[in-house]
């Protein structure tokens, strides 16, 4: 088994996000970037596959600032090989199809037969990568994956739905997994292991041809109306309770 894990650096949303001058992106100059939380789980699950079933693990990322360090940390975590994919250009908050087009050839060329990545990112308004990659590769895919077990003739994948409902799905051939949580929390990699991995230079590979079809574009970004802090409900207990219930109804959070 050869598992490719797609890792993405995303803005730390705990940070203050400013909108760029162009108005359709955040100001990336200052914002702190971190490994997408779900990708972290995808990497853990891949390393678990390596430990449980002897899979070889290749971590893949689109080239960019901080990617070497990201991939080195993947080595420290247990990836066998790290590859960064070069590409020409992508618009801000790019369409999943466009990203998938860049990655798919490389993944195929690596000979991977299972692809893991995070189920979503804070900025994938253009769609989630796992399903888009599945479509591009012509492989089945599963999102919201919460645990993967090696089976003699493939993988057994747990897919989670709302309300605690889940299914166990058997995948016989190549498959793309959008991981929500790994079978166990991502392990800690000590500073000394990270320091050792600093020497590793990720391989470079050219990505696929740019996506030809039409794609959705983010035209502008805006801050939501209410700023920091809670919107305060006024009035007595009855008035507050009414507004509370109305909010729950609006957000689809009422029980049932």
């Amino acid at each position: 088994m050869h598992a490719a894990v797609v890792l993405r650096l995303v803005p730390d949303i705990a940070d203050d996000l400013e909108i760029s001058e162009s108005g359709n992106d955040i100001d990336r100059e200052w914002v702190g970037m971190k490994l997408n939380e779900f990708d972290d789980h995808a990497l853990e699950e891949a390393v678990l596959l390596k430990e449980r079933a002897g899979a070889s693990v290749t971590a893949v990322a689109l080239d960019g600032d901080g990617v070497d360090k990201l991939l080195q940390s993947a080595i420290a975590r247990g990836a066998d090989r790290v590859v960064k994919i070069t590409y020409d250009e992508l618009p801000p908050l790019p369409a999943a199809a466009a990203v998938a087009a860049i990655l798919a050839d490389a993944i195929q060329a690596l000979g991977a037969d299972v692809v893991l990545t995070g189920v979503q990112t804070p900025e994938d308004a253009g769609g989630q990568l796992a399903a888009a990659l599945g479509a591009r590769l012509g492989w089945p895919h599963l999102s919201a994956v919460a645990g993967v077990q090696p089976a003699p003739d493939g993988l057994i994948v747990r897919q989670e739905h709302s309300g605690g409902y889940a299914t166990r799905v058997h995948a016989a051939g190549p498959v793309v997994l959008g991981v929500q949580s790994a079978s166990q929390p991502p392990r800690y990699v000590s500073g000394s292991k990270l320091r050792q991995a600093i020497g590793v230079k990720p391989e470079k590979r050219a990505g696929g041809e740019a996506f030809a079809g039409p794609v959705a574009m983010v035209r502008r970004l805006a801050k939501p109306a209410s700023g920091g802090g809670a919107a305060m409900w006024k009035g007595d207990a009855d008035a507050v309770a009414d507004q509370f219930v109305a909010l729950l109804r609006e957000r689809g959070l009422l029980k049932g």
Partner: protein
Amino acid sequence: MATILVYVETRGGAVQPIAFELLAAARSLAAPAGWTVEALVCAADPAAPAVEITAADCVLTMAHPALSPYLPEAHAAALQAVVDERQPDVVLFGYTTAGLDLAPATAGRTGRTLAAYCRTLALDGGALTASAQVYGGKLIAGIEAPLPAVACVMPGAFAEDAGRIAGSPERIVLPAPATLGALKTRVLEELFPEAGGVDLTQASRILCVGRGIGEAAKIAGAAEVAELLGAELAGSRPVIDAGWMPKARQVGKSGTKVRPKLYVAVGVSGAPEHLEGMAKSDLIVAINSDARAPIFGAAHFGAAIDLFDLLPALADRLRAG
């Protein structure tokens, strides 16, 4: 004529509530443009759930054993066949596991553009425009998706009432594509939530009680509201320390870190150690008699009010449904 296709999610033979919100969304898009709304129910036995759908112009059903329980590969294949054949201008999914699977898959396999996390939708010339929630809700993206397009809509963005209105849609049975006979994945078993043991990290709604509750005997009132909300009951450290709840229910730095869809904090001051455990929740509502309590800095909604006044009032309304 231009059409909007709504993917109807079912589970155990019943339509999921999100489908009605999507129907409402589709109708609000279709009405001004004079488009038609089609709903698609794919299941082993789609007839029963399809009956629930009345707010569409046309209800399409496709039956095949591989379609129930839900399997992404099967539903993606079904959708590809339907979309290729009927060529809808807009396809709507809800932001659920199925939506995460099928929106990008359908867009990718049928060459459509895609807008995710949509809270509003509109048609603007040759494009679908949407405002989408990004960066954990910190920013709103204005997206332009040239038609034909796929959109994945946030739950709660459209009121489901408009998706439940009565009507007598045309009903069409579609043949299952041959691809459904050659799937590489199959569902082994379905897992249903277990009652019992608490695992706050898994809870989608949490009601957390702070020291403001005052004494053990008062917890019952909060527990009732939690029950009515379908929420797990949790406590701040002092509440756990006092032995009013077991340690497994402690939220915070030295307890459990949670990220539910709804977090209601009553009588919690919002110390940094508490915030550390819950500030990432999707929606936070805080009730505290002190308007300056730091919890309001982390909450999305709040009220400076006595919790003993609010809880009964809230219980009444929730009970009434």
